[in-house]
């Protein structure tokens, strides 16, 4: 065995002995306190009675002078923008809206008499929320850093309201 490899073996043995002589501490005092991530919806405001952009049902009139009625059961999507990895469930809870991805509407709307080939469309009506998400890193009760998202929006469709029209 060369002198170099002999030194390595001896050094390794010393290290193992040293490790055994100084076992891992049993209390937490030797570790840095854990970093906690806090995500909050902040600067929240809302505007009710807003018409959503997505068409949830469309009916092409096939009888000249006929009507079309779009009935219950249409599904409107609940839309929530997220940031910093905040979960859907946490964001909807803090916004105070339902956590389901969709809302089934219960109302119907009838068109006036229309020319054949005209489309009668239904859109959801609901509340738009404006908000930001704040991310804070907290360690031992001290805020280590704070980040704020850009302006985010959510749309919470109403089950009992839809808006119908030609456009």
């Amino acid at each position, binding site marked *: 065995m060369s002198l170099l490899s002999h030194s390595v073996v001896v050094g390794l043995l010393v290290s193992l002995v040293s490790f055994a002589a100084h076992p891992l501490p049993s209390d937490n005092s030797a570790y840095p306190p854990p970093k906690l991530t806090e995500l909050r919806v902040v600067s929240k405001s809302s505007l009710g009675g807003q018409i959503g952009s997505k068409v949830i049902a*469309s009916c092409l009139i096939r*009888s*000249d002078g006929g009507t079309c009625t779009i*009935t219950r*059961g249409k599904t409107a999507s609940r839309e929530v923008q997220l940031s910093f990895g905040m979960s859907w469930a946490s964001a909807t809870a803090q916004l105070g809206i339902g956590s389901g991805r969709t809302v089934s509407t219960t109302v119907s709307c009838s068109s006036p008499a229309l020319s054949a080939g005209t489309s009668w469309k239904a859109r959801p009506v609901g509340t738009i929320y404006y908000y930001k998400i704040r991310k804070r890193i907290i360690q031992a009760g001290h805020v280590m850093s704070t980040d704020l998202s850009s302006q985010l929006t959510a749309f919470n469709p109403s089950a009992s309201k839809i808006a119908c029209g030609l456009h």
Partner: protein
Amino acid sequence: MRPALALVAPLALAAAVSLAGCTPAAPAIPPADLIGASLDTLTEGPGADATLLVQDASPRVGASPSYTGDPDLDAAWQIVAICTSDADVARSSQIEVAVLPEDLVTPAVEADVASGSFRDAVDCAGRPHHG
């Protein structure tokens, strides 16, 4: 007893699974079966959970449209054309029908319906199964 139990238990389980598999499924309802039926047959039956589009085809028989969407009046309307998103009406999430008031469905209109004259009274986009 143990070996016997070890033999019987899997057989009993297999029998239970087999019996469960034999439970008869509800027969499919093709959309054509709803032609000539009153609208409440659909809205209170196999189409109760679907998104429903109702086209009032009254102008085709010289009358003004009057369907209001009031479910209490669905029994007074007859389905003259239908298309669905599934071959089984009960499994369809999207249903479109064309309707006429019952009192406008004369024998001549019935004959037109039977000959398919009202098939184009529904659009059927995304609902490929025709009645």
